[in-house]
């Protein structure tokens, strides 16, 4: 049975309301934190080893410690709720069903950072969720946990929700800040980093929803206890949003020592693959991380069981491993076509490129067009080499990581499924789509 921190009360009726959340221990961590000094809270977060849950996995305590603190200039906490990575829908679950855990997390984090204003920047399409968050903010305010002189500490905090308008790139922290300032979501060159010059050129911390929502648990059980829950540098617990070809897709909170095999097949989690089909491949960390075939997903190249944590999933580098990323776990069964799936991802990245960097603006279009050509049976062997060449020219050559995100899925698909690309070149019909990979293997 998994340890539950974030989702421990998720099934409690009415947990969305302040009253019920409070009855189940809500805001006790906030009260505890408000009696601590900001430095003590920072120390707890550092000790916890919490890594940013948005995908990059950067240590949260370290990120907070970079925040510049010049006198007379406001500081901001901006919550990144622009969850737009295909396969990732865990933050939506938290905001939709347990909004107060985020509000409490923002209160503790902002107090620690010395921020008096926090903005939650949420993807525009989640257009019913701001109402839920705003109601939670009102309730917290009515009960003295937001506003002026919170719980007689002399500390003031206001939280505002801002909707984006449909741009994946705004999940990148500097693009998000540009968008929050009312501009196109074009990522900024770094340095300066947001910790020095962020929102309105003021020191700013940008953290993902799940990261901030993890803070109350750290204060409740202490950073040291939180760290013990994990494995190595993967501490605490993690939300995984599982989708694709699974019997029980959904959002799960997992321990980092859980094996990938157990996650996919056990009844406690995804319950296996529909209709007893075989596992073909998986993208375990959201669409931008490398796809891996079943043989390298369940066990590493060395034959060790693959675990659901940052280190184990990346064993072997991109040659034989992948990344935990945001925890967007996409499963492909034996009947799925990797070429077609990769093509839809390439179309996504082409659509979402902000157009600022030439390799990304032009390259993502090339990737999509070449993949479409191959998928439709009009490709040549040279096209596979061209795909490889184009993705190499995008990777690492853009201001923000969208270029890498567009490049890695294509590179991994060619690396592990080149024979499927070749099949498409020789045969106009997609064999896996029509006959299944089992038949394909016998051809």
């Amino acid at each position, binding site marked *: 049975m998994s340890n539950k921190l974030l989702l421990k009360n998720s099934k409690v009726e009415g947990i969305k309301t302040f009253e019920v959340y409070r009855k189940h221990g809500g805001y006790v961590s906030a009260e505890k934190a408000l009696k601590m000094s900001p430095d003590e809270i920072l120390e707890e977060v550092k000790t916890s080893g919490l890594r940013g849950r948005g995908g990059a996995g950067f240590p949260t305590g370290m990120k907070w410690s970079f925040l510049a603190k010049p006198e007379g200039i406001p500081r901001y906490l901006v919550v990144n709720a622009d969850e737009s990575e295909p396969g990732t829908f865990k933050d939506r679950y938290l905001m939709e069903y347990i909004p107060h855990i985020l509000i409490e997390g923002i209160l503790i984090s902002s107090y620690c950072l010395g921020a008096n204003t926090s903005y939650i920047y949420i993807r*525009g*399409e989640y257009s019913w969720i701001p109402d839920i968050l705003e109601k939670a903010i009102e309730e917290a305010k009515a009960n003295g946990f937001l506003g002026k002189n919170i719980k007689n500490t002399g500390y003031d905090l206001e939280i505002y929700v801002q909707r984006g308008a449909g*741009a994946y790139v705004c999940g990148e922290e500097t693009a998000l800040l540009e968008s929050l*300032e*009312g501009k196109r979501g074009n990522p900024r060159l770094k340095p300066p980093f947001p910790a020095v010059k962020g929102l309105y050129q003021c020191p700013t911390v940008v953290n993902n929803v799940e990261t901030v929502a993890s803070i109350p648990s750290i204060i409740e059980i202490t950073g040291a206890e939180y760290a013990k829950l994990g494995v190595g540098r993967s501490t605490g617990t993690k939300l995984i949003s599982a989708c694709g070809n699974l019997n029980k897709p959904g959002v799960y909170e997992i321990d980092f020592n859980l094996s990938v095999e157990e996650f996919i097949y056990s009844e406690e989690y995804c319950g296996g693959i529909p209709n007893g089909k075989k596992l073909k491949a998986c993208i375990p960390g959201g669409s931008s991380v490398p796809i891996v075939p079943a043989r390298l997903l369940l066990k590493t190249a060395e034959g060790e069981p693959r675990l659901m944590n940052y280190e184990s999933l990346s064993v072997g580098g991109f040659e034989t491993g992948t990344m935990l990323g945001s925890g967007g776990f996409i499963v492909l069964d034996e009947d799925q076509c990797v070429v077609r799936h990769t093509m839809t*991802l390439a179309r996504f990245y082409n659509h979402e490129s902000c157009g600022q960097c030439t390799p990304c603006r032009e390259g993502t279009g090339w990737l999509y067009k070449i993949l479409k050509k191959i998928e439709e049976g009009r490709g040549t062997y040279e096209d596979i080499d061209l795909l490889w060449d184009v993705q190499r020219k995008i990777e690492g050559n853009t201001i923000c990581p969208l270029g890498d995100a567009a490049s890695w899925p294509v590179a991994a698909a060619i690396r592990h499924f080149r024979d499927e690309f070749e099949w498409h070149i020789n045969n106009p019909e997609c064999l896996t789509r029509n006959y299944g990979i089992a038949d394909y293997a016998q051809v």
Partner: protein
Amino acid sequence: MDANSVKSNNVVVFSEETLTKVNKIIARYPEGKQKSALIPVLHLAQKEFDGWLDVPVMDYVASLLSITPIEVYEVATFYTMFNMQPVGKYVLEVCRTGPCMLNGSDQIIEYIKEKLQIKEGETTQDGLFTLKPAECLGACGYAPMMQIGKFYHEHLTKEKINEIIDLCRAGNIAID
């Protein structure tokens, strides 16, 4: 269009209710940073003026926020949720990326095209429906799905599409 708003002969004015909302939004940001309100105000404008943004509406938003019209145009054209041309009363935004594709979104899109006799991006002749494929809407575990107005419709099947379209035609579906 909201009954209390004005949009004629290039004169555009929000309703009183919306203007109150605009002022409340501007107050969220520090003094002089009212441009931050641009995206939320464009959402209000689109909702108030028939689901799309034309030049007079964008110019009006610019005047409300004391910014130049070009600052509004460049934002409005960047974000996919803002429509730059008229759309139907119900915009069917069907997700077609990765996980939704794995669960049959292509077939759902084809079915809607056939049923409504429109192509992607087109609006039905009666002005009721626009079909707009979307790139990932964060409902991957509940695929295939589509968004209509403010709400998500998940685990779509052909039967469910029939039901939703009937509800739209009868005016019995929530979009806001």
